[in-house]
């Protein structure tokens, strides 16, 4: 498990009720886990706070959080950018 997985999943589970009792499937579309337009905003906002990052405008599109895998990749990328 890499260093952000536990925290990443904790944030995700906080907002997605269907993700709570199950292991996170990183390939399933998040809308199938209960993500809607309001929870999407809340998830991104919480990710920013949890990882001290800021999604740039060009990443504030649905593709960024279509699946847990894509969202985690975006978070990882922003953390790397910030570190460098």
């Amino acid at each position, binding site marked *: 498990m890499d260093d952000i997985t536990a925290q990443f999943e904790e944030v995700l589970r906080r907002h997605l*009720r*269907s993700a709570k009792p199950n292991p996170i*499937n990183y390939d399933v579309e998040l809308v*199938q886990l209960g993500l*809607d*337009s309001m929870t999407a*905003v809340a998830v991104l906002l919480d990710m920013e706070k949890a990882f001290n990052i800021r999604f740039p405008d060009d990443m*504030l599109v649905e593709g960024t959080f279509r699946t847990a895998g894509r969202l985690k990749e975006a978070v990882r990328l922003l953390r790397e950018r910030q570190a460098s």
Partner: protein
Amino acid sequence: MTHPLPDQSLGPEWTILELLARGVLDDSERQMVRELVLTGTLDWGELLEQAVRHKMLPMLAHHIISAGLRFDVPTTIYMHLESALEWNRCQIDVFRRETIRVAQALASRKIPFVVTKGMTFESTLYGSLGTRHMNDIDFMIRPQDREVVMSALQELGFRPFFDWAKDARREEISSRLNRDHLPKLARKIDQPGTRIINIDVANSLTWAKSPFDVPVDKALENPVEQAVPGIPGASIPCFRPEYQFLFTVLHLFREAWLQKFVDFGTDVGLMKFGDVIRLIHRDHDKLTDGELLRIMQTHNVTHAVGWVLRHIDETFQTRTLELFALERYGDEKLLGGQMQSSAYVSASGQPMRERLQSKSRGSVRPLAAAHPRTQDE
């Protein structure tokens, strides 16, 4: 088109505002307002608070003055009302000039657009009296023109801003994800009384991810040129009557059903319902010739429109559902089934009159998340 006088079960203050919102049209209504103002039990604090909540302070002020009730109002309250009306008139004048400035910039780039809401209604529905409150200037554009419009507005000095929201970053993310509007834009003018001009540019007649929509391209066809009072020779493009009505009603529906408007405390208000009643009164013949019904049926918005009209009829004792032959439409449970997510307000069945008068809108509970599928399904 006159309506039965409202019942006074919610108090004289509320009755006055209901009468003003729908428009005082005849002597019996004028007399009723007069008697309510003159009643010894009128609570001016309550009346002013509700007038402010429903953006009707300038309208109340104008009626007090035009009905000759000035000396029947406590002096300090009258002075405040008079100031509110004068300030609103100044703000409208500033907004008119800015609207023309923006309209000219968009037209010079051959961008299809119309001016919507307050700026069009203040002259057509409210007689250019300075009584229609406005927070901003509203435009409608096509989705494909978002970037070029944003660029044009930035050239005019407008900048995106989110400070109006309690959580500015949340609103910024929301506006980037839900692309039914450009981010709210503001320009500092530093003029006494009006320091900032806000612009709201929509590119949808409904909202992002709405279960129904009306194509903007169609709605923008054949706009009506509307003169701008006080500025000779100036005009602005506006929706033709069918789409003016549709957008106004669907906008009210949106504010009634989206949870974020309840959270912000900017959901349904008396003035917005008044806009719809006044539109029907003004464009009655055009709206009932069959074309509007055809458009609503084509785009599957009859239930949403029916829902709004049903609440108007129940609140204001009008008969708009019958007028538009929409008695079968507007089922709240059906609409609630279409909009099951945390983004929407629950179809609670609460009478609209009670909701409008309520001062604790935030207590309206959202629907539980709509039984999302599990990963295994």
